[in-house]
């Protein structure tokens, strides 16, 4: 019961959706519509599990390490402020409310700045690791160099040649490489999904 029923359910639901794809009919469209809607509802109700886990980890961390307490308290405070500030839908959706201001002036700058630091790390990586140690590495390096050169104002006709060459790189070898990866990944994903439908792959169920 603990394993066989879920495996059967996966097979049944999956097969129904595959058949629905090939049989366009009003009934199958209604089925498809409700199946989608039900999945959204399940997903919405599953998300509190993630929020609970984050809060539990924060509290546990604070219990274990006294130095962490102030930081954990700030996480919980930030969480509670946003809950209270967004309790009513008009507060939450208003562009001048506390909730919106916290979003625009705390969340946005913090997240944007965290990711902006990658510019420094990529510069450091370019300096420390981007070396033509082998022919393959040299091919990668030269390609990246030519692509980046497109943002430098070069004298004519070099600028036009470079722009044309980059266009060729993007549309021919880059396209070929990315398409091969795309097809390869798709074949892998389809195989994996088929194994799930047939009950061969069961990792998603976890252990008893």
């Amino acid at each position, binding site marked *: 019961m603990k394993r066989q029923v879920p495996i059967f359910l996966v097979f049944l639901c999956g097969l129904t959706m595959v058949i629905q794809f090939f049989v366009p009919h009003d009934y199958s*469209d209604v089925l*498809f*519509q409700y199946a*989608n*809607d039900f*999945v*959204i509802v399940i*997903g*919405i109700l599953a*998300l509190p599990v993630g929020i609970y886990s984050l809060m539990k980890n924060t509290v546990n961390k604070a219990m274990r390490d006294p130095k962490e307490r102030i930081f954990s308290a700030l996480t919980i405070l930030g969480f509670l402020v946003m809950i209270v500030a967004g309790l009513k*839908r*008009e507060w939450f*959706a208003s*562009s001048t409310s506390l909730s*919106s201001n916290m*979003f*625009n002036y705390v*969340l*946005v*700058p913090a*997240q*944007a700045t*965290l*990711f*902006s630091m990658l*510019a*420094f790390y*990529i*510069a*450091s990586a*370019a*300096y*420390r690791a*981007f*070396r*033509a*140690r082998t022919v393959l590495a040299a091919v990668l*390096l030269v390609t*990246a*160099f030519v692509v*980046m*050169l*497109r*943002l*430098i*104002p070069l004298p004519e006709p070099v*600028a036009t040649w470079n*722009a044309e060459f980059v*266009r060729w790189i*993007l*549309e021919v070898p*880059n*396209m070929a490489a*990315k*398409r091969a990866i*795309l097809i390869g990944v798709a074949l892998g994903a389809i195989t994996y999904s088929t194994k799930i439908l047939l009950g061969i792959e069961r990792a998603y169920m976890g252990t008893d």
Partner: protein
Amino acid sequence: MAERKSKAWYDRMLSVDRRWIYLIMGLAVVVPVIWEMYIPVTESSEVRDVYEFSDDVTDGEIVLLAIDYDPSTMAELHPMTEAILRQVWRNGGRVLLSSLSQFGPAMADEILTRIAGEMDVEYGVDYVFLGYKPYPAITILAMGADFRVPFPTDYYGNNVDELPMMEGVHNFDDVEGVIALASGTAADYWITYGNAKYGVPVALGVTGVMASDYYPYLQSGQLFGLIPGIKGAAEYEQMAGIRGEGARGIPYQTTSHAVILFFIVMTNVAFFARRAAQRRR
């Protein structure tokens, strides 16, 4: 100290403190921001295709603009949103917006409030913001059936049926196409679940990091256009005659790319000099 003195020039170059690299990189960005300038960009066909599509959205026609990015990528994608909104509204077109990123709605609301105020367009008539739903793939599929399935109410809590613009607008058949400004897997979902399932024309605005991955879809015709990163945004603004954040970004892109290219050259010169010295020894 003695050991430091005995180091060859190439060894010193190859082991430079990372903070010097950070400082040079920081200056390469700060200086062009302070001394504002304008550098024109070469235009590409994939951006022009999106521009021409948006330019044809006129006289009450509707384009679906998907705000599927978050603050970590807004630097590249927000200028695209702004330019597209201005262009479509300028031509009398209407915009239906949705968001599949959890941070998209508030950013969309911010930009809509700002630009709608400037351009004198009315909510519910010239644009509707459907809001956010989790699980992008399922949401796109549900939108294909009827926008009301995933979004019975809009972001502000209004019943979608009560908004004048939504009269007779049910699914992808009722919009001219989708321009998805996406920073993650939502871009793939629009291709797989929007284009392949429902046949709606899709164009993408993506980050520079993602851009090269979407050329196969462009070649196969699954995408009708692509705006790649901040350069794509600057190209779009140039075509639309808008001076926005995309164009503002090009000068520091130029200086920082020059710095990185310089780093690559220098580190390789030092690397080959060391290799030659080791061989001689």
